[in-house]
C-alpha cells in the first residue's frame, strides 16, 4: 500500500514537473499590429492561411481580380472588394480558433484564419 502511494506521488511529480518544463513562457510582448496583403485570383486566396496571436490587431489588405465580398467566419465580418482597388478588413483577433474565409456569393472557401491563444 505504501509502495503504491510512493509510486503515484513519484509519477505525479514527474508529470507535473515535465509539464512546467516543456511549456513555453507566454508570449513576450503584448498584442501586435499585423497587416497582410491578400490577393484573390481565380478563386484562390494568397496567402491561403493566415496565423496571428490572440489580441493582435489585424488588417487584411485585400485585392481581387473580380468584384466580390469576402466573409470571415466566427467574427462574422464582410468586406466588399472591387477589382483594381485594395480594401481593408480590420479587426482585433479576440476569438481564438480556426476560421474560414469565404467568397460570400459563391460560398467557396478561399482560405483560413488561425488565431493562436496566448
Amino acid at each position, binding site marked *: 500500500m505504501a509502495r503504491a502511494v510512493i509510486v503515484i506521488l513519484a509519477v505525479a511529480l514527474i508529470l507535473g514537473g515535465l509539464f512546467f518544463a516543456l511549456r513555453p513562457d507566454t508570449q513576450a510582448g503584448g498584442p501586435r499590429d499585423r497587416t497582410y496583403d491578400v490577393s484573390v485570383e481565380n478563386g484562390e486566396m494568397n496567402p491561403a492561411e493566415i496565423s496571428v496571436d490572440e489580441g493582435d490587431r489585424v488588417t487584411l489588405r485585400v485585392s481581387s481580380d473580380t468584384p466580390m465580398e469576402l466573409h470571415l467566419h466566427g467574427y462574422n465580418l464582410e468586406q466588399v472588394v472591387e477589382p483594381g482597388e485594395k480594401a481593408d478588413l480590420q479587426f482585433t483577433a479576440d476569438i481564438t480558433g*480556426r476560421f474560414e474565409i469565404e467568397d460570400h456569393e459563391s460560398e467557396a472557401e478561399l482560405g483560413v484564419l488561425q488565431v493562436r491563444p496566448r
Partner: protein
Amino acid sequence: MRRVAAVAPLLNLTLVYTSPALAHGFGPTYDIPIPLWLYLYGAAAAVVLAFLPLALFSRRERGAAYRYPRFDLLRVRLLRTLLTSRFLTGTLRLLSVGLFVLVVVAGLVGLQTGFNIAPTFVWVIWWVGFSLFTAFVGNLWPIVNPWAVIFEWAEALARRLGFRDGLELGEAYPRGFGIWPAVGLYLAFVWVENVFSGSYVPRYIAFFVLAYSLITLYGMAYFGKETWLRRGEAFSVYFGLLGRFAPTEVRVEAPSVCAGCEGCEPGGCVNCYECFRRAAPEERELNLRPPAVGLGLQEKALPGGAAFVIVVLAGVTFDGLLETPLWLEVLRLTPVTQTLGVVLLPLLFFGIYLGFVWLSRALGGGGGEGFLRFAAAYAFSLVPIAIAYQVAHYYTYLLIQGQMIISLVSDPFGWGWDLFGTAGFDPRYGLVGAGFVWYSQVGLIVVGHVIAVYLAHEISLRLLRDPRRALRSQIPMLVLMVLYTITSLWILAQPIVE
C-alpha cells in the same frame, strides 16, 4: 445572416471535385493543431502512465472473477417508472422514425446546395452526437433503431392482417459469417463518411439511407430480425461496442430467461436487449457502473469480432489522417488512393494488432486461452483510446456545427419556412477558447489511454489468471497502446490540409 451561416460549412461543389485531400466529411475544422511541446508532453505522459500498473498491481488473487461496482437504477422508484415507461420508449421510437423520414424527404426534395436538415442531422447530430451519447450515457439504439422499429411495426401489421409467421423467413444464419457482414457494411460507411466527395449532398444522403434500408430490412426478413441486428446491421454492432464503454448497462439475472438466447454471453446476460424485454420486471436490472468496465467482460468470440473493433479504430484514425500533410504525400508519391486507404489502413492495423497479440500470448507462456480469444478480448481494451480521440477531434465540431440544428428545425428543406421562429439563428463561435481545446484534447486522450491500460491489465488477468504471467503478457499490449495514443496525438498536432 442566416443563409450565410447555413451554407458556410458547405464546400463549393467545384472545389470538391478538384481537391484530392478533403477536410471533414462535412464542415470545416474549428481547432488549431496542438503545439509541439504539448504533443511531446502527451506522448511522455502516455509512456509513463502505461507502465504505472506494472508498478502498482503486482499481486492479485488467483482466479478472482472480473467484478465491478454497480448500482441498479430500477431500485429507485421514480427512476423505475421513468425508465421503463412504455410511453417514453414509444415516444422515442416515434420520434426516431419521424426524424428518419424527415431526413430522407429533406434529402430528396429539399434545397440541395444550402439550408437542408439532412447533412447536419446525419453527420453532426446522429453520427457524432448520438455516438457520444451512447458512449457516455448508454446505448439507446436497440430501442430507437429506425429500421428495427419500422420492421416491428410492419410485422405487427402483417400479423394483424393474418400472416401468422410475421415477415420473417427464418433462414438459418451461416455460423461462419459471424459479424463479417456488419464489418463490410461499416467499412462502406467509413468510405462514404471520409472519402466520398458528395457525403454532404442531401440527395446522396437520402439515396444511401434508402439503399441501407433495403439491405437491412431484407436481412431482417431473411435471417430474422434479432439475428440480423446482432450480426449484420453495422450500426447495431457499432453502438453495441460503444455501449460497452458506457456507464450504464442492462442486465438480466435469471438463467431461465437467457437459456438458448443467441446473444447472451457466457457468464452473464449483460446488454442483451432481447432477454431484457422478455424478462419479468423483478429480473431486470438497469445498472449504473464505472465507465469502460463493460469492455472487460468476456465476449463470445464471433468470427469478425476483433476485426470489427479494429475497423472502427482504423476508421477513427483514418478520419484524422486524411487532413495531414503526410497523407497528401502518400497520395502524391504512391499509387494509394483515398478509397484504397479505407481498406489498407484497417488491414495495416489488423496486421500490427495481431502481431502484438501473438507477442502478448507468447510472453504469457503460450498457455491459457486460444489465440482468437486473446485477439477478441484485447481488441476491446483499445476502444477507450479511440473514443477519447473521437471526442477530442469532434467536440468543437459538435458544439459549433451542432448549433445549426436550431435554425434547421425551423426550415428543414430550405424553402424559407420558419416553423419555430429560429430560422435566423447564427451559430456562436468562440464558446471555448483554442487553449482550452488544446488541453482538453490532450487530457482526454491521456485519460483514454489510462483506461485502456487498466483494461489491458484486467483482461490479461482474466485470460491468464496467474498474476506474474499476466503482467508479462500485458507488456506488448501496453507498447501497442502507447503507439496508438502517440499516433492519435500526432494527428492532432499536424497542420491541417484542406
